[in-house]
């Protein structure tokens, strides 16, 4: 298998995750718990869209279609995002837990990619490092705050964590080109990323007085990377692309 195919697989899943979680999180705009948080959460959602655009641009330079076409003209089966990011925003408890679980994985993935032999993604990983650093700081602070506040907030965060965790494990679904990415030093691989992620999030979860679900209950929600999605992705895409599809050739 040629290297480009392997790299494209990696880039698609990263960009699709960012685009979909960015769109989902933007659904809180105007509805956030307080004004300042509304601004912060919306701003981070925009960051995610910007990151996905930058990666679609790399894909474009490798012969794929342009960023707008990739974002707006594919159907659910052509997307490679994980199931966690597709879920409706639910309550703020769920959205914060998702933000925490996903953004730590993203942070660590970019940390690995900074040393990738594929220079365009290494450069991008270095560029967005600071941006994502704030995202995890924001997630950690909220997790600690709500995990330790009232009985209700604690219970809601724990329930959200229990309900999200298997979907979060789906972030690390391996692809067909895993070995090639590793041997060519493009990406160290999903399994090692998952191990580092567990090590990173565990002490923060503990500080928040929350508990990871027991390992015996872990059952990763897989299929997203191969285009098999939850019932929630296609309606999201329909909605996201509604205006674009009225006139795909329009100049914005």
């Amino acid at each position, binding site marked *: 298998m040629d290297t480009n195919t392997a790299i494209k697989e990696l880039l698609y899943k990263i960009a699709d995750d960012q685009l979909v979680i960015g769109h989902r999180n933007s659904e809180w705009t105007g509805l956030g718990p307080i004004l*300042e948080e509304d*601004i912060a959460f919306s701003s981070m959602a925009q960051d995610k869209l910007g990151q996905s655009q930058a990666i679609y641009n790399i894909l474009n330079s490798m012969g794929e279609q342009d960023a707008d076409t990739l974002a707006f003209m594919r159907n659910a089966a052509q997307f490679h995002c994980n199931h966690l990011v597709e879920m409706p*925003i639910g309550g703020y408890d769920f959205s914060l837990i998702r933000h925490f679980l996903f953004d730590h994985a993203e942070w660590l993935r970019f940390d690995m990619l900074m040393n990738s032999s594929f220079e365009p993604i290494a450069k991008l990983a270095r560029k967005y490092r600071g941006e994502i650093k*704030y995202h995890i*700081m924001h997630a950690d*602070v*909220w997790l600690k705050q709500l995990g330790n506040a009232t009985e209700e907030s604690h219970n809601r965060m724990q329930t959200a964590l229990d309900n999200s965790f298997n979907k979060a494990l789906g972030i690390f679904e391996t692809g067909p080109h895993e070995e090639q990415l590793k041997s060519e030093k493009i990406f160290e691989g999903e399994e090692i990323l998952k191990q580092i992620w567990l090590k990173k999030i565990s002490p923060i979860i503990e500080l928040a007085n929350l508990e990871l679900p027991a390992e015996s209950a872990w059952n990763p929600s897989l299929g997203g990377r191969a285009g098999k999605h939850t019932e929630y992705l296609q*309606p999201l895409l329909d*909605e996201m692309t509604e205006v674009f599809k009225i006139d795909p050739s329009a100049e914005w």
Partner: protein
Amino acid sequence: MNKSIDPRVNRIDFPEEVTEKKELDQWETWEVFHQRKRGEQHEHAGIVHAPNAEMALVMAKETFGRRGHTANIWVVQSMHVHSTGYEDDDMFATTPEKIYREAGGYKVMEKINKYKKEQQ
């Protein structure tokens, strides 16, 4: 009803009767000071609501630091800011007349402005 699951399309259920809330019924306020570049003064940028300093910094970063350049942000609980009273503002009444205290009142003003421009 639209089938969308986007809450902006199908508004979540708002209570029919809206009751007025007490001032600061949830979180206290923090004064935010923003520094554009290292070495420059921190300038007061505004206020955020937060339950503690850590949260205040997280809120201040996006509320006042999401555009342009930022080197550093301070937050201080509003209750720790002490101020003069507006009833005593006559203390300042004659200050604007004392232009001899302002560097800008001297003949070197032109030089100063030139220097300032070069520093930008």
